[in-house]
């Protein structure tokens, strides 16, 4: 057996190498710094590492796109070929997740400073471990590697959730998330074991095969295992009825971490849902539209009754998982190449837009919340349009984009998802999705009303945001508008996703 790593192998793993070396570096440097020095050294270092990984991802994307100069050739060596997916698909995932981690890092710098004893080293090392796990999950060609990736980012999230140990909500959320997450991981493993028993391999089939051969039926044990495996993935993507943990955990976790959870975890879970699509048992394929419809109904109905904004966004996240599943129906149930192709692109587009939008929304909440520890309700954002026009504008844009109203990117995301489902013949799911987003208008517009049409309370005080936090909010707000007016900016790069 040939054990050599080639240069292409290293090129393929570059974002991972940068991130893991960076995580260890942050951990080591943290040991030797005094309390004051940490706040000056560690955040810029983390930004640098994440920017490096993001750059590596973009470089991979460019060199993998057709027509580029390939150095020396983009074929992996014998060691990585069976286990790693060196494709535009992985590069897009790496870019998305490094971008999300970077934005979360920037949102949390000013937020961390307000803590009693900011734990810079710990926080940032765990923040760097998150994209490592998710990128492993996305690039894996083998369920074993995917599981290790899943566990890495889950463990990082459990700890980040419960890090504020003196807050009862954080401890409660951490414990709930840990117990349920560990259970889901066990289910994932059990499903993998059954798949191995049935098929004799843990390899994930090639993406291209989905479109060439459609979904062949895994039989017997492998089908059973596939079904069980998907339960765990639906849990991670908070698809109803596996969403029970979402509101409590979103509410209890520190707000930047909630942003990470709602965007990063969902992105990773849907990437694996796409690559594992052929493991789904044929007999219960009709369940996917049903799950999509249930998620949309449960998410929207739940969000209607919330007064706490983090819980509201949690339920809206369940509804959005439902919209994503509507497009996923087209992969699972559609016929042939074209359907799967369109649907995968629609899902990736949606994930990118949803990520940007949710980061903007949670970024504003993290900014407003800070210190005062109070739960952030509609009360807290009343009259924000006058008190802090910038914050209010970003939150308003995010709400409009989540609702899917035209000049924002959210509209095109929803449009593509429903168009993909309709062209694959999934009319029922698409219609329920459209109706669901009309219901969703109510609670998103409630945010707008509170922002601009209600008087501000007297004593309200807005803390000053750091430069990085404001920059993130400004960038994501601008991106929501930009991709809304010129959707091709985001559609065109996704065309190179090869099947």
């Amino acid at each position, binding site marked *: *057996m040939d*054990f050599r790593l080639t240069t292409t192998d290293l090129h393929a*793993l570059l974002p991972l190498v940068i991130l*893991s070396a960076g*995580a*260890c570096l942050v*951990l080591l440097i943290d040991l030797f710094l005094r309390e004051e020095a940490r706040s000056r050294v560690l955040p810029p270092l983390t930004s640098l590492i994440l920017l490096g990984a993001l750059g590596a991802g973009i470089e991979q994307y460019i060199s993998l796109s057709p027509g580029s100069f390939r150095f020396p050739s983009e074929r992996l060596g014998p*060691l*990585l070929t*069976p*286990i*790693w997916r060196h494709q535009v698909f992985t590069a897009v995932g790496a870019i998305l997740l490094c971008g999300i981690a970077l934005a979360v890092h920037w949102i949390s710098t000013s937020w961390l400073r307000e803590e009693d*004893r900011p*734990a810079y080293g*710990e926080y940032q*090392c*765990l923040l760097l*471990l998150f994209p*490592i*796990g998710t990128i*492993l999950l996305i690039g894996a060609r*083998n369920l*074993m*590697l995917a599981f*290790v*990736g899943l*566990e*890495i980012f889950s*463990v*990082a999230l*459990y*700890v980040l959730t*419960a*890090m504020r*140990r*003196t*807050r*009862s*909500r954080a*401890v*409660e959320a*951490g*414990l709930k998330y840990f117990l349920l997450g560990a259970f889901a991981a066990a289910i994932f493993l059990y499903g993998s074991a059954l798949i*191995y*028993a*049935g*098929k*004799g*391999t*843990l390899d994930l089939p090639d993406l291209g095969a989905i479109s060439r051969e459609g979904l062949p039926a895994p039989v*017997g*044990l492998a089908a*059973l295992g596939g079904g069980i495996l998907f339960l765990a993935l639906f849990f991670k993507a908070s698809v109803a009825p596996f969403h029970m943990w979402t509101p409590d955990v979103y509410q209890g976790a520190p707000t930047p971490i909630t942003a990470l959870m709602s965007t990063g975890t969902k992105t990773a879970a849907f990437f694996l849902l796409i690559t594992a699509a052929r493991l789904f048992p044929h007999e219960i394929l009709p369940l996917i539209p049903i799950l999509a419809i249930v998620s949309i109904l449960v998410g929207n109905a739940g969000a209607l009754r919330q007064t706490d904004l983090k819980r509201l966004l949690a339920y809206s996240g369940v509804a959005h998982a439902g919209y994503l599943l509507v497009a996923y129906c087209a992969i699972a149930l559609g016929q042939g190449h074209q359907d799967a192709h369109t649907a995968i692109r629609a899902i990736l587009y949606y994930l990118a837009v949803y990520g940007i939008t949710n980061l903007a929304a949670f970024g504003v909440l993290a900014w407003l919340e800070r210190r005062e520890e109070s739960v952030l309700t509609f009360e807290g954002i009343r009259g924000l349009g006058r008190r802090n026009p910038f914050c209010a504008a970003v939150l308003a844009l995010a709400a409009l984009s989540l609702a899917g109203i035209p000049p924002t990117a959210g509209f095109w995301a929803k449009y593509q998802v429903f168009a993909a489902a309709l062209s694959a013949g999934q009319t029922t799911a698409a219609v329920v999705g459209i109706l669901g987003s009309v219901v969703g208008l109510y609670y998103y517009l409630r945010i707008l009303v509170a922002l601009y049409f209600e008087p501000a309370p007297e004593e309200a005080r807005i803390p000053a945001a750091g430069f990085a936090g404001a920059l993130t909010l400004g960038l994501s707000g601008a991106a929501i508008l930009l991709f809304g007016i010129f959707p091709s900016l985001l559609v065109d790069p996704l065309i190179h996703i090869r099947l």
Partner: protein
Amino acid sequence: MALPVFLILAAGAVFFAANVVLRRNPAECAVHLVGSFFCLAGIYLMIGFPFLAALQLLVYAGAIMVLFLFVIMLLDLRREEPRENPRISTIAPLAMGLLFGLLAVVLPDMPVAVATGRGAVAGAGGAEGGKELANYLFGRHLLTFEATSLLLLAGIFGVVVLAKRRTSRKADLERLLENIEAESRTERKEPPLVGAGSEGVAS
């Protein structure tokens, strides 16, 4: 001949594993875990993986269990009061029992690929087992192997972050209790688990 032995070993593995969860004394749990490992090793031996069976005994039943026991002895554990949670204690076992009962009915009819030699490490039996296993682990799964080290780092690091005393454990607990009281004053909500912060994670 093989079937009864397998059934005994499998039943033993499940019995011991269940006891790991059900026993209240952590040291007892650890000993039951050893029992479960032994049964698993027996099953590996039966399906022709002597090398794996030896590893299972040496590494898990030997090294790792000793480590577990050390940690349990070093932690200052108090006797745990039996807690009552009637809803969970009736519904959950029933649901799990149903699920596994269903599996027990469905599973035996299904063809198994590993036993028929289609498995990827099917050749790992016999005297050459070590070499095959090493090739598999450090060749094909080198990346997985390396990623596991990051997973372990994340796990260890996480425990340290959550269990570390920044001030003192007592002060931490007191602040947690204060926060809980303040919250239950402002809203009528069932207080969450007390003391789950430092101690729950450390054990």
